[in-house]
C-alpha cells in the first residue's frame, strides 16, 4: 500500500501537506473550544430537548 501511496503523491505533496495542516489547525481549534466550554452551559444545552414544554425563561444559559 505504502509503495503505491508514495508513488502516487510524488510531486504533489503540497496538496496533501496543506490539507493535513488545515485539518490539524481545525482540530486544535475545536479542541480548545471544547476545553473552555463550561459544564453548566453543557448541561443546559443537553437538557433542551427535555425542556421543550417548560415555560420558563430561556434567554441565556447559566454562566
Amino acid at each position, binding site marked *: 500500500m505504502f509503495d503505491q501511496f508514495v508513488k502516487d503523491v510524488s510531486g504533489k505533496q503540497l496538496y496533501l501537506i496543506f490539507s493535513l495542516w488545515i485539518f490539524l489547525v481545525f482540530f486544535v481549534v475545536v*479542541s480548545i473550544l471544547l476545553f473552555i466550554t463550561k459544564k453548566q452551559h*453543557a448541561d443546559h*444545552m443537553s437538557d*433542551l430537548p*427535555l425542556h421543550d414544554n417548560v415555560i420558563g*425563561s430561556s434567554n441565556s444559559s447559566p454562566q
Partner: protein
Amino acid sequence: MQPEKFFYDNKIVRNFGIATVLWGIAGMTIGLLIAVQLYYPGANMHNQYTTFGRIRPLHTNAVIFAFVGNAIFMGVYYSLQRLLKARMFSDKLSAIHFWGWQLIIVSALITLPLGITTSHEYAELEWPIDIAITIIWVVFGINMFGTIFKRRERHLYVAIWFYIATFVTIAVLHIVNSFEIPVTFWKSYMVYAGVQDALVQWWYGHNAVAFFLTTPYLGMMYYFLPKMANRPIYSYKLSILHFWALIFIYIWAGPHHLLYTTLPGWAQSLGVAFSIMLIAPSWGGMINGLLTLRGAWDKVRDDVVLKFMVVALTAYGMATFEGPMLSLKQVNAIAHFSDWIIAHVHVGALGWNGFLTFGILYWLIPRIYKTELYSKKLASFHFWIGTLGILFYVIPLYWAGFTQGLMLKEFTPEGMLKYPNFLETVLRIVPMWVTRSLGGCLYLTGVIVMAYNLTRTALQGKLLANEPAQAMPLEPVNTIARESGWHRRLERRPIQFMIAALLVILIGSFVELMPTLTISSNIPTIASVKPYTPLELQGRDLYIREGCLACHSQTVRPFRSETERYGEYSKAGEFVYDHPFLWGSERKGPDLARIGGKYPNAWHYNHLMDPRLMSPGSIMPDYNWLITQDLDTSTTKAKINAMRKIGVPYPAGYENIANRDLTTQADAIAADLSRDHIKVSGRKEIIAITAYLQRLGTDIKANKTTTK
C-alpha cells in the same frame, strides 16, 4: 414579562409523515422489482419503462429523496418548532415546500422510466427539475431560518446545527453538480467532462450520503433519542466535536469512489486519508447516541421504539466503520464494482435511515394524534421482520461481492484468467441475489405492517393540528449579559453559524476540486482521441437513456486481471469529450471501455435483441424496442451546438451537415448487417447504439501517441 401563547403546526408534520410511508413503500417495491430482474430478466414485463437500467435510478431517487427526504422534513418540522419554541415561520411556505417536494418526486416517477436522465448517480433528474429542486430547497431554507429568527429559545441545540449544515451543504452540492447546458427541454449535457466530471459527481455523490442521509438524521437522533429515553444526550461537548469534525472531514472523502481510476493519484490519496479519519467523528456520534441510553437499557427491552433506535445506531456504526475500510486500496480493489458496495449501502439505508425513521414514526404519530400506538405487537413484529430482512439482504450480498471480486482476479498456475467469461462469475452469485430479494421482501412486509399499524393509530385518535404551547419571549440581546465562550455565542447567531459551516465545507471542496478543474496538465490529451460522430453521439445518449451504466462500467483499472480481461487500462485523455463521464459504479456485466471492434455489428444486434442468443444464461434484458423505434435526428443540430459550447471541437457550421454524416454512417452499418442477413433500417435506434459501442476504446488503439 408574560409567557406567550402559540401553536405548533402538527399538520405539516403529519403530511410529511404520510408521504414518508407511502413513498417508502413505493421506492422499496421498485427496489424489489429490480432485485428480481437480476435473476429473472423477464420481470421487466418486456417493457422498456420497467427495465432495470431505467428504474434503478427511480428506486434510488425514491428511497433517498422521497422516503428519506420526507422523513427528514417530518423530523425537522417537528423538532425545530419545539427546540425553538415557535411555530414554523410560514404555513404557506410549509405547504409550498410539501407540495413542491411531492411534485418533484412525481416528476422523477414520470421522467426516469422514460429514460430522461443526466446519468449522474443520485442526480439523474434533468435540468428543469433541478431548478425546481433549487426553488423548493430555498423555500425550505427561508422557512427554517424564519423560524429560527422568531424563536423563543436563545441557543440553538445541536440538532439544529446539523439541520443548518444540511441546508447549506446540499445547496452547494446541488448547484455545483448541476452545471449542465440544456440541449432540449428534457436533455442536457454536463459542463464538465471525463475525469473532472467524475470528481465533481463523486464529490457530490459521497456528500449526498453525508449531508442528506447522515447529518439530518444525526440531528433527528440528537432530538428524538433523548425524548424517547427521557434522558439528556450523553455528552454535549462530544456533540460539538462530532459536529464540526464530521462536516469538516466528510467533504474530502468523495475520491474514494474513484480509486484506481484516472483521477490524479494525490486526489485519490487525499480521499483515502480523510475517509480513514472519518471513523473518529462518525463513531463519536454513534457512541454519544448509544451512551445516551446509559442506565436506561432496561427500557430498550420493553420499548420497541428504542429497539429501532439502537439497531439504527448500530447500523450507523457498522456502515461508518466499513466505509473507511472499503476506501483502503487493497480492499477497494476487490470490493469496488461488486455487490459488496450494495450491501454496505443498504446497511446504512435499511438500518440507519430506515430504522431511525420507523422509530420516529412510532413515537411521533401517536403523540400528534393524542392517542396510543394501535398495536405494540405489530410494531414488535415489524422490528423483528425488519431486522431479519436486513440480515437476509446484506449477508448474501457481502458473500456475493467477495466471491465475484475474487473470481474476477483469479489466475491459473499457467498465468491465464481462471474465469475469463464474466458471465460465469455472475451465474455463481445468482443464489445470493435470490436470497437478497427474500430479505428485501421481509423488510418491505414490515413497512407495510407499519403502515397498517400507523393508519389504525391515526384512525383511533384525532390529529391535533395546532398544538397549544407557551414560552417566554426572548429579551432583546442588548439587555442580557454578554456570554463567555466563542462557541456559546455562535450557538445564538444562526447566520454566523451557517457561514461558519459553509466555510468548513468549502475548505475541503476547494482544495480537492480546484486543482483538477483548473490545472490542465492534470489531464494529458491524446492526439488520436476525437469527438464522437453525430451517430455515435446519438447512440451515446441512447446508452444513457437505457441506463446501461447501471451494470456496465467504462473504466479499466490498472490491474493485470482487468487488462487481461478488457484491454489496456484507461487514460484520462480518453474521456475529454465525455459529457457526462460514464464510468459507472457497478459491474453486473463486463466493462465496455474497450468493447469497440471486439465483435461484429451483427453480434451487437443479436445481443441487444436477445442477449441469451449470444451469451447463454445472460441476465441482461432484451432491448427489442431499439430495433423498432426510429432514431430522433431532429436533435442532432442542437446536440452538436451544445457540445461545441462546452469545448468539444466540432468545426464551425458542422451542425448543419451533421445529419448527413449520421445517415452515411448509419447506412454503412445497416449494409454491414445486411451482409449478415439482418434486415434493419439505418434509421432505427439500434444502429446508433451499435455505432457508439463500436467506437468505445478504438481511439487509443488507433494511435498511442500522447501529447501533454
